[in-house]
């Protein structure tokens, strides 16, 4: 889950934090802000910036997305098409060579990289009519969040990964092996993981926000953004109500969280339900606070130090986005080569240095020591025990229960 760093409304003349030098300067500034345990915000070095891969394609159907990096045909005729979230990889620009181009260079595979995913539900609605009829979609690899990967796997809309051709898959960190959404681990490899928490603009709030209750403070009526990702929004609210979101059995377990959200909506507390498009509103002060994702907010803070990220006292949610192969994907060998490539710690470290999320690859921290030692110490990128203790991941819901959750949530946030 990565936010669009290429929002058209946002003037981004200044390339930020891509080289190690810039990143260190940033961290120095972040240090000056005095990051406490709870205001981890600017410590992150999600070095976003201009998105070299083109523009967000929120409306283009799969396969016709203009935001692609087409490499020149380079022997062999092998091809690969990866549809990912926006600004979720190091791009090639400003003299730096991104992972996609290093991959093309190393393998000669003609790779098309597209930033077509902006929301799990929207993306699902787009691929459902095709995959559901047993036809194939164009991309060979897509990157839904874990729960969505689980849904696709259960529906039989995924092919098993050619893991025998991915020796580097052995580098997958222990904690993400055989996850709930893919118990056998045959169908998915994590892409990146991260956290959801409170993102706020201290110029507007005038104080540090430390709890979910702050989002419902009448002082900020009409200035709060709420995320359309149900597991993050309901997860955070439920945790603030003392609900254990890792073990939800029925809808009733989380019902108070839905009630709280609905009451806030009816009271006019919420300005807008947002997907990835919270950057503008947060930086220009339309949002006092919203529910944001860890890697993205740090990148915003580089532009605007007033923007901060914090785990609520009651804790944050954690999630992982995955690489899966939709049923009928044709370029299996090329896909295996790609997965092997990005599971090489050296390559994975390059991605981490840019996106600032939690890497699922072992050895990235060591590799990152050479690139950006300070980032290697960041607890939001390499979670320490304290961070892990502070976060929960949303329970894996049974189909029926998930339907209830989704229906209730979409009734509140839906138009």
């Amino acid at each position, binding site marked *: 889950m990565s936010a669009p760093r290429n929002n*058209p*409304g946002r003037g981004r003349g200044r390339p930020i934090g891509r080289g190690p030098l810039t990143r260190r300067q940033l961290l120095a500034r972040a240090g000056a802000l005095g990051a406490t345990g709870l205001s981890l915000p600017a410590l992150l070095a999600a070095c976003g910036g201009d998105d070299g891969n083109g523009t967000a394609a929120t409306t283009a159907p799969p396969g016709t997305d203009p935001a692609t990096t087409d490499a020149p045909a380079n022997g062999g005729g092998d091809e690969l098409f990866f549809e990912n979230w926006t600004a979720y990889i190091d791009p090639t620009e400003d003299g730096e060579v991104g992972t996609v181009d290093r991959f093309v260079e190393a393998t000669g595979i003609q790779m098309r990289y597209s930033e077509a995913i902006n*929301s799990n*539900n*929207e993306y*699902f*609605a*787009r691929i*459902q*009519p095709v995959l*559901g*009829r047993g036809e194939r979609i164009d991309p060979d690899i897509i990157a839904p969040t874990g729960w969505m990967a689980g*849904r696709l796997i259960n*529906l039989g809309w995924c092919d098993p990964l050619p893991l025998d051709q991915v020796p580097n898959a052995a580098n997958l960190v222990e904690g993400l092996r055989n996850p709930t959404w893919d118990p056998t681990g045959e169908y998915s490899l994590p892409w990146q993981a991260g956290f959801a928490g409170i993102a706020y603009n201290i110029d507007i709030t005038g104080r540090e926000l430390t709890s979910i209750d702050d989002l419902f403070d009448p002082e900020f*009526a*009409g*200035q709060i953004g709420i995320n359309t990702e149900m597991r993050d929004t309901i997860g955070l609210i439920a945790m603030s109500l003392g609900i254990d979101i890792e073990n939800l059995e029925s809808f009733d377990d989380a019902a108070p969280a839905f009630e709280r959200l609905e009451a806030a*909506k*009816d009271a*006019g507390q*919420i*300005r*807008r*339900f947002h997907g990835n498009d919270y950057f*503008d509103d947060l930086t*220009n*002060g*339309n949002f006092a606070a919203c529910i944001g994702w860890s890697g993205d907010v740090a990148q915003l803070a580089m532009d605007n130090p007033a923007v901060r990220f914090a785990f609520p006292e009651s804790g944050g949610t954690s999630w992982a986005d995955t690489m899966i192969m939709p049923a009928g994907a044709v370029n299996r060998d090329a896909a295996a080569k790609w997965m092997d490539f990005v599971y090489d710690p050296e390559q994975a470290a390059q991605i981490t240095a840019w996106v600032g999320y939690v890497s699922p690859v072992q050895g990235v921290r060591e590799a990152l020591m050479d690139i950006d030692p300070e980032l290697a110490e960041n607890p939001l990128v390499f979670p320490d025990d304290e961070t892990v203790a502070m976060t929960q991941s949303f329970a894996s819901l049974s*189909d029926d229960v998930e*339907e209830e959750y989704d229906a209730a949530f*979409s*009734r509140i*946030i*839906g*138009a």
Partner: protein
Amino acid sequence: MTTAVEGSPHRADGGRSELLGLAALLGAGLLLAAVGARWISGPLVPLALALVLAAVVAVIWTAVAGSPESKRRIAPYGLLKPGMLWLALFYLAPLITLLRSSLSTRPSRFAVDFTFDWNLGNYTTAFTDFAPQFGRAFLYAGSATVLTILIGFPLAYVIAFRGGRFKTLLLGLVVIPFFTSYLIRTIAWRSLLADTGQVVQLFDTLRISGILETVGVMDNGRVLNTPAAVIGGLTYNFLPFMILPIYVSLEKVDPRLVDAAQDLYSTAFQSFRKVVVPLALPGVFAGTLLTFIPAAGDFVNALYLGSPNTTMIGNSIQDQFLVQSNVPLASAMSFVLMLIITVFVFVYSRFFGTEDLT
């Protein structure tokens, strides 16, 4: 036309062509609609398309090789044919498909094919669950329409009667916003109306924020993401559709009629009210339809300028179609919207009368 050819020696021949023309027109239209709606499928499709083609060829054949009388008789059907076929394939067929899916059931949550079982429950849900959105759609579209009349009429009046040699320039200025995408213009309002944007600052500088809060334009110091912003966006976006038809009506008003009224001792206001306004009504009528109908189904303004409490039915339909993938419900909602708008247009045109439009 029939009276003109009474007793003509070619009558029987002409009558046959006329019948042939009508049959070819309707038959081809229905066949094409049936193919489009997938009532005809499999190996029958090429057959149906061949029949459509044959109907077209028959009309062309008659028009080229027929007797002068049959040519004359078949001409109207030939001229109607392209439009008819276009409507059959791109209007009638989708409409049938939409109606069918609105009466269908999703067998399971992620099913892509729906079971057609006369499920009227979708319509019940559309009314019960989305009544507020329907209400807001018509409230906002109605308010925007009234505002476009209030703003557009004086403007069109000035251009038509006082424009002089600047008429073309002024009309050009009315149309100029169309040179930029509708979407871009709406999104641009987001930065103008932002909490720290120019508009709010201007209101603060003028010290009218308090008044605006009282009349409901501002809410807790905000303009963006309030009902006022949505109505304002609709008004802004549809204003040219009101100005242009009113202008066309006013342009045709003979100034000597006003002179005549004043010669007969009417005051300026009376001549305006009794001469100019009635003659401009066809323009207001057309402008209202051009504004209200698309505004009622609009979702862009509420999406970018509104809040969760200002969503219109267009947003709900978009959400059900593209995010929830609940096609049957979304279809039913679309149909209800169409129905309400049709009833509105019917009542409205009876009330205003369309005979003045010509």
